[in-house]
């Protein structure tokens, strides 16, 4: 069913009785050309672009829960391409370009809103770092503006500019950054992939890999064995667990990242704002809730829920930046399991096992990467070669020393 104003009008006149499910809840077949493990944004986007760009439609996406139950529904919905390093910047800018056309592409309202992402700086040294990043962005044809304190004050008059410890000196603004509706992104990709023949199989957990010698030729699941010519993994926080089924050890640790939403208030925060003196970021959803987050809980976790010291730390960041929201009540908090790589950058690559492909290491930045991750992973699986904007995301870069250390903190994944 194509969504349009005419479909809506027709359904309005007939009591909305004719809407059909957005995608087929498929039963697994015995074999496919390609299996994607993980029905999150990255897995569904991969399946969609396999079908759309590469014409491969005999594809299954296996999801152990339901579509939208994992990190796709747990992130803080920010999209941006404000990266410094040459290995990252073209990839995230390609993602941004895909975001800009996503809704027309998928015929689905993903509520992509380019309301701007502003990174605040609080010292002369930090201004220089941000200026360097802004210049790197502009050299890659990405929009970036360095604002002084007066310009930021015009946008956000209620920040704590004269804070004794963290005075706000200005910010680096990417106007094309913003937010998108995270559930709608997976629903839209699922619907568009399903329309092109992809089987989306929910409640189907992968429990083992089928092997023919060294090669991977399918998966064992809770719903039986399924064979495939190629298998791609896009399972975020569960990457090490699935990789262990293949006997692989990876440069990844799993951590929980918490997110928060407040009660709804009137329009207050026009875009995304990040606090540069701690780790805190905030935006306001279209429903009015303030959506915010901060640091990881600082130790390995598969718990999908966070602990109170980090809640306190995040709220302290909020109060240092934006005291005006001190009386706003927090409505909910939740946690998602992130696959923290050792240099803070992702991996889109083949593995040592023929037929097994890896998409992992998104740390807590996976949401913004969804379209390009799918695009590049589909390219890799279909053509057995890295896409040009994802060439740096090799698995062997940790052994060869070609790290993409955007934060510059070394092999300490809970610091990225």
């Amino acid at each position, binding site marked *: 069913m194509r969504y349009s104003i005419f479909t809506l009008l027709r359904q309005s006149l007939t009591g909305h009785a004719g809407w059909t499910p957005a995608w087929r809840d498929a039963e697994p077949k015995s074999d496919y050309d390609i299996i994607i493990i993980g029905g999150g944004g990255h897995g569904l986007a991969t399946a969609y672009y396999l079908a759309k760009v590469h014409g491969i439609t005999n594809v299954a996406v296996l999801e152990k829960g339901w579509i939208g139950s994992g990190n796709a529904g747990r992130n803080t919905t920010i999209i941006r391409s404000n990266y410094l390093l040459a290995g990252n910047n073209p990839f995230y800018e390609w993602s941004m370009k895909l975001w800009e056309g996503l809704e027309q592409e998928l015929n689905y309202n993903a509520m992509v809103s380019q309301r701007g992402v502003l990174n605040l700086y609080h010292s002369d040294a930090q201004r220089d770092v941000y200026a360097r990043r802004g210049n790197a962005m502009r050299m890659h044809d990405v929009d970036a503006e360095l604002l002084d304190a007066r310009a930021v004050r015009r946008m956000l008059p209620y920040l704590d500019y004269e804070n004794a410890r963290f005075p706000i000196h200005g910010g680096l603004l990417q106007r094309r950054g913003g937010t998108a509706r995270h559930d709608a992104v997976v629903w839209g990709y699922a619907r568009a992939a399903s329309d092109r023949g992809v089987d989306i199989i929910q409640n189907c957990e992968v429990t083992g890999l089928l092997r023919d010698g060294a090669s991977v030729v399918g998966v064992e699941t809770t719903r039986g064995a399924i064979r495939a010519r190629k298998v791609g993994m896009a399972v975020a926080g*569960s990457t*090490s667990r699935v990789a262990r089924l293949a006997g692989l*050890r990876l440069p990844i640790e*799993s951590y929980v990242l918490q997110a928060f939403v407040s009660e709804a208030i009137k329009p207050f925060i026009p875009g995304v704002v990040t606090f540069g003196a701690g780790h805190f970021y905030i935006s306001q959803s279209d429903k009015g809730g303030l959506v915010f987050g901060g640091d990881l809980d600082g130790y*390995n976790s598969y718990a999908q829920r966070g602990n109170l*010291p980090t809640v306190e730390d995040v709220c302290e960041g909020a109060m240092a930046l934006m005291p005006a929201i001190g009386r706003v009540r927090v409505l909910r908090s939740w946690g998602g399991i992130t696959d923290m790589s050792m240099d803070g950058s992702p991996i889109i690559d083949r593995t040592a096992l023929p037929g097994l492909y890896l998409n992992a290491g998104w740390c807590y930045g996976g949401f913004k990467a969804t379209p390009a991750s799918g695009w590049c992973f589909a390219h890799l699986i279909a053509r057995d070669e890295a896409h040009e904007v994802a060439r740096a995301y090799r698995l062997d870069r940790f052994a060869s020393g070609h790290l993409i250390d955007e934060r510059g903190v070394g*092999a300490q994944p*809970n610091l990225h």
Partner: protein
Amino acid sequence: MSEFAYHGAAASQRPDPDTPEVDLAYYEAVYLRDNPAGPHKELWYHAGGCRSWLRVTRDTRTHEILAVNFPAPVNT
């Protein structure tokens, strides 16, 4: 920020620099992790207290502490 500071997996040991294939040994020690969902041996530092290192076995799914002891002295 808190009394105890996390220092990662306890299994990771600095390799002997005279070991054969030393690059591979360092790559594995620095970058590769078991990252289990379940009991995990890890190092914590009692930063806000007695400044001891602790070897803790913790379930990463529930945060239940299964064992705590002092790590064995490292032979140099």
